[in-house]
């Protein structure tokens, strides 16, 4: 405690959704095992910037604090990732924090990820099991398939893959890698497969699968290691078949 170690932050802030962003510097006392969240908490406790001026506390979102909810995603030293899993000891200083600007910024590091949830609705990322009577147990899922499908189910809709994608931007309406991979997940499920064609047709719409330009930044950036580009390529194959089925006709649903 006697050594006066500090941590320097340069944080991109924004007061309102429509106001201009600006940078503010903070120097906070170092504690062992700090992560970016605990550092932001320290700033909130004592909102004084590096010049010694009193300022507003930096706003950010967090929830699970163990890299499974995706809420605290932000751009840390140029890379989008979760603040809770970003350890201060492993970051180069000054640590730069920015919001993931692919999404609308609400305030400081808080962004609005609604577009991802809208995309999940659009691609029907669920398995319909409700009926007016008990439909009974569904078909079994082979264990091998369950294992790879589990990897896809780790997606926490954090938005890192959209932030890294060069084709997700204000000039395009690409829904991004995360919801696409969810289509593969739900199509792999034996009951979900009963609505396979519907999901495939949804991603064959404008702003869908075809917008992928194969930069493969998503798979490099995904904090959960989800094989996003494999999912996209697999869906490319599925939609190719679906396209021919729809045009030439098929008894497959």
């Amino acid at each position, binding site marked *: 405690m006697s050594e006066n170690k500090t941590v320097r932050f340069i944080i991109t802030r924004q007061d309102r959704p429509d106001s201009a962003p600006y940078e503010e510097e903070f120097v906070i006392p170092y504690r062992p095992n700090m992560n970016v969240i605990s550092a932001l908490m320290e700033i909130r406790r004592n909102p004084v910037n590096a010049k010694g001026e009193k300022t507003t506390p930096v706003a950010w979102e967090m929830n699970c604090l163990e890299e499974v909810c995706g809420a605290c995603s932000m751009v840390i030293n140029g890379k989008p990732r979760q603040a809770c899993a970003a350890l201060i000891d492993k970051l180069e200083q000054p640590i730069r924090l920015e919001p993931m600007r692919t999404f609308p910024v609400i305030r400081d590091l808080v962004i609005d990820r609604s577009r991802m949830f809208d995309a999940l609705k659009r691609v029907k990322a669920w398995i319909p099991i409700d009926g007016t009577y008990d439909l009974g147990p569904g078909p079994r899922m082979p264990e091998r398939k369950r294992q790879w499908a589990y990897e896809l189910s780790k997606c926490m809709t954090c938005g890192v893959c959209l932030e890294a994608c*060069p084709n997700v931007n204000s000039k395009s309406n690409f829904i991004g890698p995360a919801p696409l991979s969810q289509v593969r997940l739900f199509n792999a499920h034996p009951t979900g497969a009963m609505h396979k064609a519907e999901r495939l047709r949804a991603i064959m719409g404008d702003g869908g699968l075809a917008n992928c330009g194969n930069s*493969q*930044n998503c798979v490099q950036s995904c904090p959960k290691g989800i094989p996003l580009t494999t999912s996209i390529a697999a869906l490319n194959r599925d939609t190719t078949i679906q*396209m021919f089925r729809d045009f030439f006709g098929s008894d497959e649903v």
Partner: protein
Amino acid sequence: MAGNREFYYRRLHSLLGVIPVGVFLVQHLVVNHFATRGPEAFNRAAAFMENLPFRYFLEIFVIFLPLLFHAVYGIYIAFTAKFNTSQYGYFRNWMFMLQRITGIITLIFVVWHVYETRVQAAFGAEVNYEMMANIVNNPFMLWFYIIGILSTVFHFANGLWSFCVSWGLTVTPRSQQVFTYITMLIFVALSIVGIRAILAFA
């Protein structure tokens, strides 16, 4: 736009880049390679191509219209991307950017090349060894052609890679990796063919 056409436009764009535009490109480079055997060999080959039956039909439906669609839609694709290689310096991200940049360079090159050769031919000029020799006599034009050929061949080879992904042929990371090697070998091989041909005129 009338409904959801984007998917089909993108698939058509991907397909036309390989068939027939890519096939024509390979054929064109191979025929040009006759120049390495001397002016007479080249002139004979060029005359053979020129006198193919249904020439205008072939030119319009195998070359011009597919190329036009591929070019126009390609410009749209290139300008909807927001390059971020400085932040994400991964190999495929570089290839993503190069594919779009070489696409634009290739378009400029092809427009100029078609104007200098096919359009002039329509105005009565004869397309032969001498015509090309006169063009690349200018060192600036020779370099313009070398850059144009390399850019075109790269765009084609790397485009083959993304064609395989876009149509769902290469799904696993391993198969995509192997196809990266194969398409880059195609890039090197076709570059040699193209550069040898253009230097034969110089």
